[in-house]
C-alpha cells in the first residue's frame, strides 16, 4: 500500500523513502503533511529518491509520501495564454491571491488552470465523425487574437457518439464523447494532460526552410535562423543577453511566444511583465501579452522547479504548435537550468564529469533542443517551435561545458561580446565568432522573397567585415595613418556597417524593428558607396576628400533618417552619391 510510505531522509530538496516498491520512475508524488510536490528521480532496492519542487523546511521523517501513478505533467487547455506560471505550471497570480502576500508560501493546492472560467466553445465535429489523435474537435477564443483548438489527445481515437451544443463551458466539462473499436468510451473535455519530459507526437518533421524574421539586422541579414530551428545566445554577464531575448520576443514573426525565465532575476521578470503588457503588437494591435505565455522561476525559487521549467515551457510550446501555430520559445538562461541539474546531481552524490556537471548534461541538452522543429501536425497543419536559448558561460569563457555542448545541438550561434557591450554596441553580437548553419536551407526563401541580390549583399558585407578585422590587427600596431587609401576605405566602410547597420537602437521608434526590405536597401546603398569610392580611389583621389562629402556620415545615420515606410528615399541617397562623386570625378 502506497499510503504507508513515509519520509526517511531529507537533504535540501532531496527526500528519500525507505523500503518501498510502489513508486514509478519520474512519478509525481506528494510529500509530507503540507503536500509538497515532488518527482521520483531514482529507485534502488531499499531507497526511493525524490526531488521536491518546494522548500523542505519543517519536513519530518515519518510524514507520508503519496504517489499519483502518473508522471509530472503539464495541464493543457484554454487559459494558458497570457498567464504567468512558475516552473511547474502554477499560476503566480493565483499563488499571490491565495497566500495574500508578496512572498511565495508553500501552496501545493493552486490549480494549474482556472477551472471556473467559461469559454465560448464551438464544436467542429458531429456524431458519426471518426476522429484520430491530434484532430481538432472544438475551438474557443482564448484571447482576442489566439483561437484555442482542442485536439484529441495522443493515443485516443474513435467515432463521435455524442456532442454538446455550442456554448459556454468550463475546461473540465465534457463536450465530445468518443467510442473506439474496442468499445472504450473517451469523454473529451477542453483540456488534457501531457508528461513534460516526453515530446508530443507529430505526423512528420519538415525541413526548416522559412526564416524567423526578427527585424534585427544582425540576425536577419547576417545570421538568420529558421522557423523550427534552435539558436544559442551565449554571453558573459552584462553582454546584453536578456535585452537581446526581449527584442526577439517582442519583434519576431512567431504567432506565440513562450518566455521562460529560468533562474534569472526577479526584477527582470517584473520588467518583462510590465513591458509586454504595455507593448502593442504591431501586427494585431493588441497587447503582447495576448500571445505570450510567461514562465518565471527566478533564481531564488526552488531549484528543482527551475530544472522542470524548461520542460514545462517546451511542452506548452508543443501544444500550441500542434494547433498549427508558429511558436518561438525563449529560454533565459539554459546555464541556470544546467546548474540546477548539477546541484541536484551533487545532492544525489553522482559521479561528476566536466566542471562538476553530471555526465548526462549533453544528452539532456540535445533532448531539449531536438524538440525545436517545423512539423506537419497530426491534424495535418503546419506548425513550428523555434528555440532561442541564452547561455551564461562562467567567466564569459565559451569553452565551458554548457556552451560547448549547446553548440553541438543548435545550428545558430549568436555570440555576445563583452567588449562590444562596453562600447555600447548593441546588440553586442560578435560578427567574427557568430555563425548560422541555416544559409543553405533558407537561401531559396530569401531569393524568392527578396531577390538573389540579398544573398549576394550579405556575402559582400561579411567579406568587408572580415577584411576589416584583419586590417585592425595592423592598425592596432602602427595606427591607421600608414594604411594605403584603398585599405582605409575598407575601414571606413566597415565602420558604416558596424555603426550604421549592425548597431541597432532598441529604444528608437524606427530602429527597434526593421523590415527585411529596408535591411536589403541599407546593405545595397553601403555597398554602392563602397564601389563608387573604390573607383575614385583607384583614380588616386584621396579618401579624405571623399569623406568630406559627408556621405559616409549620412549613411551611418540612415537608420534613423529613413523611416521604415519610405524606402524610396534610398534612391535619393543613390542620386546624391552619384552627384557628389561626379563633381569630384570632373575635377580630375
Amino acid at each position, binding site marked *: 500500500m502506497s499510503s504507508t510510505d513515509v519520509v526517511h531522509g531529507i537533504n535540501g530538496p532531496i527526500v528519500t523513502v525507505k523500503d518501498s516498491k510502489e513508486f514509478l520512475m519520474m512519478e509525481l508524488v506528494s510529500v509530507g503533511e503540507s503536500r509538497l510536490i515532488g518527482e521520483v528521480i531514482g529507485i534502488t532496492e531499499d531507497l526511493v529518491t525524490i526531488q521536491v519542487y518546494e522548500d523542505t523546511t519543517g519536513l519530518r521523517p515519518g510524514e507520508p509520501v503519496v504517489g499519483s501513478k502518473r508522471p509530472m505533467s503539464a495541464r493543457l487547455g484554454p487559459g494558458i495564454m497570457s498567464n504567468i506560471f512558475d516552473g511547474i505550471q502554477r499560476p*503566480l497570480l493565483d499563488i499571490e491571491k491565495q497566500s495574500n502576500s508578496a512572498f511565495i508560501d508553500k501552496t501545493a493546492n493552486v490549480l494549474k488552470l482556472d477551472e471556473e472560467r467559461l469559454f465560448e466553445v464551438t464544436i467542429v465535429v458531429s456524431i458519426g465523425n471518426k476522429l484520430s489523435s491530434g484532430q481538432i474537435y472544438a475551438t474557443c477564443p482564448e484571447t482576442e487574437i489566439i483561437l484555442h483548438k482542442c485536439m484529441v489527445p495522443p493515443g485516443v481515437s474513435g467515432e463521435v457518439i455524442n456532442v454538446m451544443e455550442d456554448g459556454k463551458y468550463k475546461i473540465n466539462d465534457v463536450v465530445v464523447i468518443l467510442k473506439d473499436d474496442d468499445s472504450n468510451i473517451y469523454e473529451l473535455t477542453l483540456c488534457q494532460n501531457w508528461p513534460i519530459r516526453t515530446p508530443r507526437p507529430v505526423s512528420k518533421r519538415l525541413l526548416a526552410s522559412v526564416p524567423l524574421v526578427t527585424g534585427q539586422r544582425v540576425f536577419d541579414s547576417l545570421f538568420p535562423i529558421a522557423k523550427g530551428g534552435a539558436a544559442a545566445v551565449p554571453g558573459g554577464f552584462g553582454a546584453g543577453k536578456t535585452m537581446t531575448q526581449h527584442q526577439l520576443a517582442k519583434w519576431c514573426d512567431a504567432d506565440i511566444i513562450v518566455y521562460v525565465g529560468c533562474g534569472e532575476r526577479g526584477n527582470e*521578470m517584473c520588467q518583462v511583465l510590465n513591458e509586454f503588457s504595455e507593448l502593442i503588437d504591431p501586427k494585431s494591435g493588441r497587447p503582447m501579452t495576448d500571445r505570450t505565455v510567461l514562465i518565471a522561476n527566478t533564481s531564488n525559487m526552488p531549484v528543482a522547479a527551475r530544472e522542470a521549467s524548461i520542460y514545462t515551457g517546451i511542452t506548452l510550446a508543443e501544444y500550441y504548435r500542434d494547433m498549427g501555430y508558429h511558436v518561438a520559445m525563449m529560454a533565459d538562461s539554459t546555464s541556470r537550468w544546467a546548474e540546477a541539474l548539477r546541484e541536484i546531481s551533487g545532492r544525489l552524490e553522482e559521479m561528476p564529469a566536466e*566542471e562538476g556537471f553530471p555526465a548526462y548534461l549533453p544528452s539532456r541538452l540535445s533532448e531539449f533542443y531536438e524538440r525545436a522543429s517545423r512539423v506537419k501536425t497530426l491534424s495535418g497543419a503546419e506548425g513550428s517551435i523555434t528555440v532561442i536559448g541564452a547561455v551564461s558561460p*562562467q*567567466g564569459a569563457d565559451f569553452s565551458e561545458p554548457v556552451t560547448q555542448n549547446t553548440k553541438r545541438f543548435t545550428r545558430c550561434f549568436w555570440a555576445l561580446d563583452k567588449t562590444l557591450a*562596453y562600447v555600447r554596441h548593441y546588440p553586442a553580437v560578435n560578427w567574427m565568432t557568430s555563425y548560422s548553419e541555416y544559409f543553405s536551407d533558407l537561401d531559396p526563401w530569401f531569393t524568392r522573397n527578396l531577390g538573389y541580390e540579398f544573398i549576394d549583399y550579405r556575402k559582400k558585407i561579411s567579406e568587408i567585415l572580415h577584411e576589416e578585422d584583419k586590417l585592425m590587427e595592423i592598425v592596432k600596431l602602427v*595606427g591607421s595613418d600608414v594604411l594605403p587609401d584603398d585599405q582605409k576605405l575598407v575601414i571606413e566602410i566597415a565602420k558604416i556597417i558596424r555603426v550604421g547597420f549592425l548597431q541597432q537602437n532598441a529604444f528608437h521608434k524606427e530602429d527597434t524593428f526593421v523590415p527585411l526590405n529596408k535591411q536589403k536597401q541599407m546593405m545595397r546603398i553601403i555597398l554602392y558607396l563602397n564601389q563608387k569610392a573604390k573607383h575614385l580611389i583607384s583614380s588616386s583621389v584621396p579618401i579624405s576628400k571623399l569623406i568630406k562629402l559627408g556621405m559616409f556620415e549620412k549613411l551611418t545615420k540612415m537608420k534613423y533618417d529613413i523611416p521604415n515606410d519610405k524606402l524610396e528615399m534610398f534612391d535619393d541617397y543613390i542620386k546624391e552619391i552619384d552627384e557628389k562623386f561626379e563633381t569630384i570625378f570632373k575635377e580630375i
Partner: protein
Amino acid sequence: MIINYIGAKEINGSLLVLDGVTNASFDEVVEIDIDGGMRRYGRIIQIDGQRIVIQVFEGTESMSLKNVSTYLTGRPMELPLSPEILGRTFDGAGRPIDALGEIFPVMQLNVNGRPMNPVSRIYPRSYINTGISAIDVLATLIRGQKLPIFSGSGMRHNDLAAQIVRQARISDENEDNFAIVFAAMGVKNDVADFFKESFQNSGVLSRVVTFLNLSNDPIVERILVPRCALTAAEYLAFELNKHVLVVMTDMTSYAEALRELSSSKGEIPGRKGYPGYLYSDLASLYERAGMIKGKSGSVTQIPILTIPNDDITHPIPDLTGYITEGQIVLDKSLSGKGIYPNISVLSSLSRLMKDGIGEGFTRHDHPALSNQIFASYAKVMDVISLSSVIGEDELSSIDKKYLKFGRLLESKFINQASSENRSIDQSLDLAWLLISSLPKSELNRLDDDLLNTYYRDEDKMEKGKVVLSAALDELSKN
C-alpha cells in the same frame, strides 16, 4: 513534552551527528547544552532516518560524544524583530551584543525568507542620488536594485561604501524614512570600527542595524549574517515602510565560509572547490532586494566583494555578476594614479539605469550623454594601447584629443573628494564640459538638439573669454 537527546554519534568540524532522533524536522533550530552548562545553538541540515546532522553555530569546541544534551525547538531559525532594532548591534545569529539588553519582539521572522513572487514586484525606477559622479552619471543606482562593488585588497571600497551610505538620498523622500542595515561577514575589527565611526560621524547611527561577524568569529554564524540582516531589512521595508540600504561586506568571506562548511559535510565540490549550489545560495540572498506592490518601502543592496587575485572570472564575482543588476568595478590602475573613487568606467554597469534616468527622472540629456562617454572612453583605451606601441608623439591630432579627454575624465570627473557631494546637475554639466574637449563630429551618440543646447564650443568659449581650464576651475569651486 521536552525531550533531550543525550550524547552524540560523531563530531566533525562544526557538524554534530546524532542517532536515534525520532521527531526532527528539516532546518529546525536545536539547543545544545554542554555538561549541563554552556548552551549553544545549531540547525538540522540533513536527516537520514533517525540520524540527524546538526550544524553548530558557535563551533563544536569542547563538545564530546558524551557531554552534549540536545533539545529540538521544533522551529526554523527565526529573528526577533521590533522597531527597536534600529541603532542596535547583533551577532551573526541575531543576538544583541551591544549590552543594551534583549529585543522584545513584535514579530518573529524566518531568516531564510521566502522567495518574492515575481508578479508582486514593482519594477524599480526611482534613482538614488549618491553624489558620486561616476556612479550617478555612468552606473546609476536605482531604489530596489542590487548593485555590488567589485574590489580587491588595497583599494578603498570601504570609503566608497561609507560615502554612498552618507550621501545616498532619494530626491522625493523625506529624511526620516530611510534605514541602513550593515552586515559584516568575516571582516577585520578595524573595518567594523571604521564603519561604526563613519555612521556616527554622519549622524545616522540611530538608523543603522548592524550584524557583526568578525574574521575570528565562528564561520557558521557568518553564513547566517546576511540572512539575519536581510530579514531585518525586509521587516523595516515591508512592515515599517522604510527605504532600506543594505551594505554587505565581504561576500568573499561569506562564500569561503560556505565552501568550508560544504567540504566538512563531504559534498561534491564544483568550481574551485565551491559547492555546486553557490549560485542558488547567493541568489537566495541577492534576490531579496526589491520593491513590492502595496508597500512603499524598498530594499536596496550594496554587497561588497574583494575579488581573489583580481580575477573577475573567479566563481564569486562571476556568479554575483550574473545575479545582481550590474556591478561597480574598482580598478587598481586608477587608484595607482591617486584617483578616488577608482571606478572603472567601462566594466561598471547598472542594468536598471536605462529605465530610471532621463526625462522625469534625472535629466533628459542623461541617457545619450552617458552612452557617449562610454563610447568615447572606450576609444581612449584604444588610443592608449596604440600610443604605448608607437609613442604619444606619433598620434594623430584627433587621437591626442582623445588622450586629453581620457585624462580629464579621470582626474576631474571620476576623481572627487570623499566628502564631496555633487548634485546630478553638477555631474552632468561637468560631463558636458569634458566631452566638449572632443570635436562635435566625434560625438555620434548625441543628436543635434542636445549638442546645440549643451556642447561647449571652444570657439564660443574663447570669444566669451572662458577657456576650458577656467571653466573647469569655476565648476570645481561650486
